[in-house]
């Protein structure tokens, strides 16, 4: 699974249970051992945080989502089945948390397009055409791209991010989103079509 267990600098040598498996730690956490839960947080917090950063530009928002994820892990520790990999379970909770928050902040395309400044639109067009931009222009182009992506349905966006940016397989995305492999493929196709429409909508538009 590409969510992969990364050795974060903070976790190296930072825990008394470095060799203990996630499943075993979860078992102890479910039994009310706070140290086991702390170890899990230490292991996975940055992975979840980085996933949240894919959806939320502000680190405060990403951290807030990360906290919500671990609160859910804490509350539902007893429901974790040891036969399923912990990272699948965690990724599912994280994806749902990101999706729920995206749902709250989702905006309508016409709202976004009218809110984009002509400059930001033009820089985004140039960025999408592969033209190198100055730092400030590149930042404005990114902001515009973030705004445009906010118009995608959260579930579609989550599938695209997991497949195309996180490098997960369709089977892994299905496990993370609670659907089937076929459903993930159909959703990805639909999401890519919407993304192409958004990218094309910017082509030639945007003014100066």
């Amino acid at each position: 699974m590409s969510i992969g267990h990364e050795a974060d600098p903070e976790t190296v040598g930072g825990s008394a249970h470095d060799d203990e498996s996630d499943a075993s730690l979860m078992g102890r956490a479910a039994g009310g051992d706070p140290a086991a839960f702390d170890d899990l947080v230490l292991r996975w917090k940055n992975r979840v945080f980085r996933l949240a950063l894919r959806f939320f530009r502000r680190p405060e928002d990403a951290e807030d989502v990360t906290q919500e994820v671990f609160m859910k892990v804490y509350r539902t520790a007893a429901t974790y089945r040891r036969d399923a990999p912990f990272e699948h379970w965690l990724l599912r909770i994280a994806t749902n948390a990101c999706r729920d928050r995206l749902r709250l902040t989702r905006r309508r395309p016409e709202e976004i397009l009218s809110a984009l400044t002509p400059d930001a639109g033009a820089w985004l067009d140039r960025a999408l055409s592969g033209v190198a931009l100055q730092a400030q222009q590149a930042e404005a182009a990114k902001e515009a791209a973030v705004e445009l992506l906010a118009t995608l349905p959260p579930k579609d966006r989550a599938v695209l991010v997991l497949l195309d940016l996180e490098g997960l397989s369709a089977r892994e995305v299905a496990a993370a989103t609670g659907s089937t492999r076929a459903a993930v493929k159909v959703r990805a196709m639909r999401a890519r079509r919407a993304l192409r429409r958004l990218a094309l909508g910017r082509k030639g538009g945007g003014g100066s």
Partner: protein
Amino acid sequence: MNCRRTRKLLRRAAGGEIADEARRHVESCPACAIEARAHLLLWLGSERDEGALVRPGFEQRLRARLQAETTVARSSAWNGGFERLVRPALAAAAALVLVCAGLYVQVAAPQGGGDLASLLETDPVFTSVLTVDPDAMFADPNMTAATDEP
């Protein structure tokens, strides 16, 4: 290079950087050019610092949030329990009052006066009503007065 391979490369493009062979194909294929734009849009809007770490003190903040949540859950559980106990208790008390009132009425009523049969026998109002001539009861008093006149 064909479109299928190009799109695969586009999706694998790390940091928005497209491989040279894919770039050459994109320049000559309008459909893949659109695909490249779409992928770049996704990448631009989802870009992150690959080495990003949560701020120090994350565990403490998480613990504080968990404790706050536990406190709220406990107080709402207490309120819920209070509700669950008080409501049935009030209903039971109301039912008890009604039963007591019924018993009191039964006990306080005069002996033999509680049922309709004995009421018919003993109550003067009922007796007078029953003994009166029905014709006289429904007769028009004006008509009676007229026939009495000479």
